[in-house]
Every structure is written in structure tokens, then in C-alpha cells.
């Protein structure tokens, strides 16, 4: 059968006929294989150009040679040498320990809330209860850290409260401007994230799992250790990595709460930029990025982090 002899097939009313009649440029603007298809790639292109590329290039810039006000292409490990042979490396390790402490405290304080909401709160109200934690999370991190100064200081809210209830007779002055102040700042800044990611992971756990545990007579500890933690492991891990990396990288926390000399990776990077030592700033950034990528890769291999997104996929 040839095209001449075949009966003309009438396109359905609407888009088929419209598109066939349109010139090519209009088809590009309105057709589904034209600009509409291109639009879908905008986020991908934007994130690649302005996130993936700059982050990957920190590795390259970290080996450039420092000039007086900038840097020039070359290969030197001087920035890494400067970092590892100075007090910065020791400060970095201390910041890592503080951050790890904040992770543990956030898990102990925050994860039971995620479990409680998933297990005990009626399903219809669960998201509303979790929304309670959106409020502190949405108030500026800067303000939440800044607001801790009057709370933790010698004449602040915490000391007044402890003295009023008779726990202490003299105000404690070793909270603000100490590592303890930094850890408190990290916990109060990032705790909601442990609740969110823990709850998101718990959403994938069906409620009958808890009923089965009850029916089989499993104790609270064994249910938590053998059932809840393994099932919620991706969420716990994602929350922990977020807190660890941000505790290590948000320079404002030690700047505002840690007192003189307190530092972490973020403040080292910021100070290096101010001192126009760009290769050093990029070297510390590269160390942070590699640490983050390694942690996420290990977590993904161990726990399959995509499981967290199952409820919204």
C-alpha cells in the first residue's frame, strides 16, 4: 500500500492536528520534544554547573600555587603540608570529636522521639507532630546560636534556672566559650534533623512489625536493638552524617559559642579566605568534601540510603 492510496488518517481533535499544522519554530516552543523537554534538564544543568563542578574543583585548586592575592595553576601540596603540620590539624581533630559527641547526644535525645511518634501517635496525626520540629529548624541557625549566648552565660537563663531549683548554689561559668558550649550549640542546631531523618526511615517500617514484636514477647531493649535500629539504619546514618559534617563545617558555632581559639573546618576555611590563602581554604574544603563523600558512600553500601526516600518515591 502506498501513501497515495492509503486513506488519510484524521488526527484526533486537539494536540495532534495542532502540532502537525504548526511551523517548526512553534513546534519547538510548544511541542513536547522541543523546549518542554529541554526545561526538564535545567535543574540538572544548574546543579552540575554551580554545585558539582565547584565542589569537585576544590581538589584541583587545592594544589595550585599561592600568589600574593590569588593563586596560579601548578602542582604543590604546600597547602596540605601547611594544614597537617600546624595547629589547624589538631583543632580539626578536636572539632571532629566535638561533632561526634553532638551526633551521639542528638541520637540519644532525638531518635526516641521519631520512634515514639511512629509507634504510639495515631497515623493521621504523625506528620503534624513532626511538624513541631520544623519551627525551630526554620528559625535562622544564626539566631539559634546567637540566642544561646544569653542562655548559657554566667548570668544567663540556664544558671538562673539551676540556681532557682537549688541544683547549684554558684553560677557555672564553664559552659559558654568552652567546648561544652560548642557541643550544646551543635546539638540544639541539628537535633531536628535526627528527628526528621529518623522518622522518615521509620515510615518505611510497617506498624504490624511492632505488633509482631509485642505478640512474640520481645522486650523493649531487644525490639529497639534488633528490630528498630536495623530497619531505621539508613535514616539514623543520614541524620548522623548531616550532624557530623555540619558540626565540623559550620564555622559560626565555635565563633559565637567557643570563645577565643575555638575553631573547626568551616572557620579555618573562612579565615583562610579572609587571609587570601585560597589554596589552603580549598585544601580544607577538599578534605571535608572527600570525608563527606566517603561517609555517604560507605553508608550507601552498608544501609542503602535510597530506602529513606521510599515513602515519597
Amino acid at each position, binding site marked *: 500500500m502506498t501513501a497515495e492510496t492509503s486513506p488519510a488518517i484524521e488526527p484526533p*481533535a486537539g*494536540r495532534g492536528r495542532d502540532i502537525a499544522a504548526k511551523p517548526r519554530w512553534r513546534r519547538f516552543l*510548544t511541542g*513536547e520534544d522541543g523546549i518542554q523537554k529541554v526545561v*526538564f534538564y*535545567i*535543574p*540538572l544543568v544548574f*546543579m552540575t554547573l*554551580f*554545585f558539582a*563542578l*565547584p*565542589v569537585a*574543583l*576544590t581538589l584541583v585548586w587545592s594544589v595550585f600555587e599561592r600568589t600574593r592575592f590569588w593563586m596560579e595553576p601548578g602542582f604543590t601540596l604546600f597547602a596540605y603540608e601547611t594544614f597537617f603540620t600546624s595547629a589547624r590539624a589538631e583543632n580539626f581533630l578536636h572539632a571532629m570529636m566535638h561533632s561526634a559527641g553532638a551526633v551521639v547526644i542528638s541520637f540519644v535525645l*532525638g531518635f*526516641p*522521639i521519631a520512634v*515514639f*511518634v511512629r509507634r*504510639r501517635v495515631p497515623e493521621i496525626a504523625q506528620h*503534624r507532630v513532626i511538624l513541631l*520540629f520544623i519551627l525551630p529548624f*526554620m*528559625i*535562622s*541557625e*544564626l*539566631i*539559634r546560636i*546567637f*540566642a*544561646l549566648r*544569653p*542562655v548559657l552565660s554566667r*548570668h544567663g*537563663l540556664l544558671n538562673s534556672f539551676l540556681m532557682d531549683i537549688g541544683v547549684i548554689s554558684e553560677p557555672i561559668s564553664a559552659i559558654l566559650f568552652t567546648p561544652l558550649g560548642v557541643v550544646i550549640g551543635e546539638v*540544639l542546631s541539628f537535633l*531536628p534533623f535526627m528527628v526528621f531523618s529518623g522518622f522518615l526511615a521509620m515510615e518505611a517500617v510497617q506498624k504490624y512489625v511492632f505488633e509482631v*514484636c*509485642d505478640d512474640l514477647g*520481645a*522486650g523493649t531493649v531487644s525490639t529497639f536493638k534488633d528490630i528498630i535500629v536495623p530497619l531505621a539504619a539508613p535514616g539514623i546514618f543520614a541524620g548522623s552524617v548531616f550532624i557530623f*559534617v*555540619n558540626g*565540623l563545617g559550620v*564555622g*559560626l558555632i565555635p565563633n559565637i559559642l567557643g570563645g577565643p581559639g575555638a575553631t573547626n573546618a*568551616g572557620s579555618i*576555611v*573562612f579565615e583562610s579566605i579572609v587571609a587570601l590563602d*585560597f589554596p589552603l*581554604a580549598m585544601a580544607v574544603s577538599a578534605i*571535608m568534601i572527600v570525608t*563527606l563523600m566517603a561517609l555517604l558512600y560507605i553508608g550507601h553500601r552498608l544501609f542503602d540510603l*535510597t530506602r529513606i*526516600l521510599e515513602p*515519597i*518515591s
Partner: protein
Amino acid sequence: MMDTYANPWAYRAQWAYLLIIVGALMAPVFYTIYISFNEHGFGAQIYDFTWDWYVVLFRNQQIIDSLSWTAYLGAATILTAVPMGLIAAKYYKRTRHKVVFVTLMLSPLFVPADILGSALLVYFKNLNRAFEWLGDSLGVTWFYGWFELGFFTALVGLILWTVPYAFVVILITMSRYRVQQTEAARSCGATAWQAFWQIEFPQIRVGVFSASAFVFILSFNEYTRTSLLKGGFDTFTTVLISHMFNTGMSGDSYAMGGLVSVISMAVIGAVLVYTLAKAERLEREARAKAEPVAA
């Protein structure tokens, strides 16, 4: 194993614990607001209520200018990050490479502000130099200053910070949408745009609205990325920090902190009330339309 009905006190204790944690997270913010209304500032033995610190704030031209810049940046971030989050959510639904795409979209949440801000600063400086070199090679000045630190670079930093939130919020709303409705609309002759705009968008409007509010709050509150990428102008948070480090914690610093917190709480409170009321109404409608269960 705890039984809610057999042991109601343990259940109540768990609720009390949850509320204590929320209270502990919010207490410093409310305490700052409380101090901001004390005429004598922090640490005074007496408390006299006053609006004066806020009056001082709004008479300061630098603060007014910084609030304007913050509002411009917030509006520009909403206009760019929310559509991008929406497109990303649509792309996520149709792509086969979900893991790679979602990793790329959510990674900016995990990279601390100082690290990403510094990487972008160096990136923009390099791009600027590269474009200047290109302009010089071609003998034109048109390429000069494209990536000079300023509004555009600060906006890019804010988009990177806010787009993961917009993406997740819209994706959550989209997960309740049934794609069969789009298929039905297409079968009836609707174009892809008509099917999206007239069928899908009305059902995900709440998510887009919430994402806009979150994006605004996040951009309003952001400090580190903006301070690294903003160039010559100041935003409210950069003024607050320079004020705090240069002149110490005065009464107007607390008023600035109080103002940021009140605006954030008002916006987020309005969003929560609106979305919950909307969800309630949709639920009632769904119940009313539902078929009765056969006996």
C-alpha cells in the same frame, strides 16, 4: 512492652519529653525576644517593657537598606528556586537514574555553608577571570563582570541552599497525585502543559505554596553563603553579625534577633495553619465523596 492503655502515665511521660525537647529548642529564641523588650537589656536586675530597641532599629538607614536587599534576594530566590524544585520533582518522577539525580539534588544540604560558599567564591572568581580573558581575546568588553560578586552570585548561593527543600516539599505533595489523571487528560486531547497546569498543578499547589514560604525563610535567614558571595551590599543577617562582633551584644542586637525570629515564626505558622486547614478540608471532601462500604 509498653501498652498505651495499660500504662497511660508512660505514654504521657513520652509526650511530655517530646514537648520538653521542642521547648528546649525554642527557649533560647523566646528568651532573646523577651530580652529585646527590656529597656535595660540583658543581665539587668529589673525588667521594664519597651519598644525602644525596635524603634532604634527602624530608624537606622543601614538596617532598612539591608532589609530591602534581603527582600529582593528572597523574592528572586522564590522566583527561581521554587520553579526549579518543581521541575526537578517532575524530572525525578520520570528519570530512570533516580539515585544519581536525587544525590545531586540533595547533596547541597550536606555540604556545610562555609565550604560550599568558599568553593563558589573561588569558582566565580575563576569564571570572571576566564570570561575577561575571553573578552580580551575577542576584543570585546561584553564578557566583563558577568560573574563579579554581587546579587547574581549571592542568588546562586541561595538557590543551591534552598532548592533541595523546595524539591523535597513538592515531591512529598506530588507523591499523593495519581498519574492516571494526567493519562486520562492526555487521552482526551490535552497537551502536556494543559494536563500539568489544569489537572496536576491545582492538586500540588499547597506544596508549591509551602515550598515558596520555606524558600523565603531560608533565604531570609541565611548568613554564611550570602556573606561570602554578596559583594558590595548587606543583608539583614550580615549586618546583625557585623554588629554583634564589632559593637557587642547591645539591646538592638537582641531586637534584630527578635525581629528575624518573629518574621520566621509568623511565616512558618501561617504556612502550617494554611496547609493543615487545607488538608482537613480535602479529607472532609474525600470522606463525603467516598462510596459507602457495602454491607
